[in-house]
């Protein structure tokens, strides 16, 4: 049941990425290109996602615990530290160069574009390197 529901949530997420255009790196790069071929669509992705998530999260968090687990695993909202800002800046640089963030890159795998087949293993190496360094000082994750 847990595995199936995770698959279903991943499938809905992936369909959402494709339907919204977020799975297309050229659309992402055009969203980021204010002074050129600007395509504001992705602001609508964020607005649609946050509208549903903020209301849904507020309702779900009235529960004492999730349906299938004993407790929620919600990351801390505070404090802001240098690691958060540095990591976000590195992520933004990579996102601006390739137009891919992690979800769309995984969703793009079956289409097997050469760029995707290079991006995803490189992302895996980046993840492994960061986790290796962080395991010296374990912390929680925001997602």
């Amino acid at each position, binding site marked *: 049941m847990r595995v199936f529901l995770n698959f279903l949530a991943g499938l*809905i997420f992936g369909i959402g990425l*494709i339907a919204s255009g977020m799975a297309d790196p050229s659309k992402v790069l055009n969203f980021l290109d204010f002074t050129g071929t600007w395509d504001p669509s992705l602001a609508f992705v964020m607005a649609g996602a946050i509208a549903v998530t903020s209301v849904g*999260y507020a309702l779900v968090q009235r529960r004492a615990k999730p349906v299938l687990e004993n407790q929620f695993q919600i*990351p801390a909202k505070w404090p802001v530290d240098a690691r958060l800002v540095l990591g976000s800046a590195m992520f933004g*640089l990579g996102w601006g160069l390739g137009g891919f963030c992690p979800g769309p890159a995984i969703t793009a795998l079956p289409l097997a574009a050469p*760029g995707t087949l290079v991006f995803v293993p490189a992302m895996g190496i980046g*993840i*492994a390197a960061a986790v290796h360094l962080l395991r010296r000082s374990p912390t929680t994750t925001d997602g």
Partner: protein
Amino acid sequence: MVITNFTPLQSAAGGALIGLSAVLLLLFSGRIAGIIGILRRALLPAAGSRPLEAAAFLGGLIAAPLLWPPLTGEAVRQTVSSNLPLVAVAGLLVGFGSVWANGCTSGHGVCGLSRFSIRSLVATLTFMAVAIATVFITRHVLGS
């Protein structure tokens, strides 16, 4: 450079599906739908990370483009850069940076902002600003 059409309705509807997925995951599993966290749980499991469940979520992401054409009668529209060295650097930065920041577009940008996290607000403003600056420099200063 590929011109893309402005698609407010499809984009908002797709965003709503992403939100639905995030709400379902919190309701059933009590977890945030952050893709980098899910990838990390699947690839480099630690105690309590439930790698099988994380892998099932990733399996759902991978199934989506396979089911999209029969469901909608349309091909998945996508243009990926063919500059492979650039794409490799981008992948390294995205993987390292989002683990370092404890979240990416989904974990901070969607889930974090939806629960009014200050950390996620700072993360989202930072990665958006850097990504916009990066595209400005690569397209309009260097002219690639």
